[in-house]
């Protein structure tokens, strides 16, 4: 913890990033604290107003406050991203753990399978899953998660291979621990660090992928606000209302940038730990 604080002091960028991430997470948890305006029903008389004191991000074509819609949309977008990471983390770690620990033909088969997942461009793989599952934020999140499974599987496998023949693992084996117990009690905890750091780094990419699918219209159904669909809604008003697409998109960009800065700082940490 103290080392974490020192890291923030020596790296001002990480501090700024942390502030942004915490602020956005707070938007996701208690949106009502940051805006008192209704995200769903607008005041038609106030439609397409430029940003100002009354409406920080301006208003949309139905007179809804865009700052409020962005803040309220955060929860859905961030939860979708976390679900996607969860899917990739659990499925990918499972595959990597089994492949690395069992070795032999199981390892070969699982790794060839991840090669194939890597051969299909990520967005297209997600879109194929969306086609099969149907539309909606949860399905989009699962689809994005599926596209990242292979990356997690590879990193987990390489970590397991590193740990598998460590002295403490051999010792646990010799002391009579079963394969399952060794896997869960000794191999997994020691292999998890870099995989969790990868989750932090991938989070940014996942948010972008979820927003892209929601921008294409496969996410939440209107009028529910979601980051990507907010940008999409503004498309038809580009000529008259620059703020409509620009400001929600800027929030996505800043958040992804901040997550990336923190993720890289975390990766450096787990690397020096070894």
């Amino acid at each position: 913890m103290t080392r974490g604080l020192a890291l923030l002091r020596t790296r001002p960028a990480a501090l700024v990033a942390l502030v942004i991430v915490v602020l956005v997470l707070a938007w996701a948890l208690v949106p009502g604290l940051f805006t008192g305006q209704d995200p769903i029903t607008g005041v038609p008389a106030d439609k397409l107003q430029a940003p100002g004191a009354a409406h920080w991000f301006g208003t949309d074509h139905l007179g809804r406050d865009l700052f409020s819609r962005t803040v309220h949309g955060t929860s859905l977008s961030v939860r979708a991203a976390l679900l996607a990471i969860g899917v990739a983390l659990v499925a990918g770690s499972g595959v990597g753990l089994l492949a690395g620990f069992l070795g032999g033909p199981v390892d070969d088969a699982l790794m060839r399978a991840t090669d194939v997942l890597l051969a299909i461009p990520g967005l297209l793989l997600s879109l194929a899953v969306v086609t099969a599952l149907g539309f909606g934020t949860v399905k989009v999140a699962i689809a994005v998660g599926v596209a990242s499974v292979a990356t997690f599987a590879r990193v987990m496998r390489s970590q397991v291979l590193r740990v598998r023949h460590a002295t403490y693992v051999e010792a646990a084996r010799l002391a009579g621990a079963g394969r399952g117990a060794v896997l869960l009690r000794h191999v997994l905890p020691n292999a998890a660090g870099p995989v969790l750091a990868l989750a932090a780094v991938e989070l940014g990419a996942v948010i972008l992928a979820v927003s892209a699918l929601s921008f294409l219209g496969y996410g939440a159904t209107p009028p529910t606000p979601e980051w990507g669909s907010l940008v999409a809604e503004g498309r038809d008003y580009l000529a008259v209302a620059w703020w409509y697409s620009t400001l929600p998109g800027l929030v996505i960009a800043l958040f992804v940038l901040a997550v990336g800065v923190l993720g890289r700082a975390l990766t450096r940490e787990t690397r020096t730990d070894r």
Partner: protein
Amino acid sequence: MLAYVLRRLAGAVAVLWAAFTVSYLILYLLPSDPVAIMLDQGAGGERVDPERVAELRERYGFDQGPLQQYVTLLGRTLTGDLGTSISSGAPVSGLIADAFPETAKLAGLALALALVAGVGIALLASWTRAAWLRDLLLALPPLGVAVPGFWVGLVLLHLFSFTWFVFPAVGNEGFASLVLPTVTLAIGLAAVVAQVLSQGLREAWRAPYVETAFAKGSGRARVLGAHVVRNGSLPTVTVLGVLVGNLLGGTVVVETVFSRQGFGRLVENAVTTQDIPVVQGLVVVAAAVFVLTSLLVDLVHPLLDPRVLAGAHGRTGGGAR
């Protein structure tokens, strides 16, 4: 050398077959009833004709077991028949062939621009000794990776089409309509190229041969050009396949933003109408593009780094990430 080429060719075919299999698993086995999805979308809510259901079941082999279905589809795909679109009834291979040239133009230009920009940033950052310039240049790639492509496209549209009227907002007409989509598509890619290349160059600068070259009296520019670049650019070459694959994925968003016809737009339409045969055809074609690019990279790789051939008898590191 021949053994190396043959092994790479066999690997490419295997990956392609596997990509077909994965897309089959996702698209035909994951939905509870693919025919229902197909008809649901094609009919637009009308009463579904039972004869049509039976016809589709037979056409796609759903009256048979999964294994037989799969073999039927694979056999057809091998003869170049990717099936027919549910929503338009047109052959999928024809749809893709029609859409591809426009997208190839866009993707090719974007790749060229991304390479020039990405390589330029990495080289300049590697060559300069001014700390502020290096920091500035190295701050660009994380920024480029973080901005959503669809957002960049809309901001560019707003500025250059609706405020200054420099470029047309929509369509496929002429070179002017290509500029904004190319820039939008290239930004993310350039950022990745710059990141991977500058990482490779940074490692190459630390190698002993750099010191040797300096000791023999070479200048900074010559050491960079003759030694560091040649060794430090290899990781960039190997990720090229992944980048071209991502490029095709990126066209889905970019072609939608700029209302261009092409591969990406076809994907967007097919997913929106849940047109399963078209989606599968597009996924297989995208995987083929990835596999061909990786194959090309694998074949060029020994020319840049002869050690690859020497090590080819042992482990082979794939072209992917």
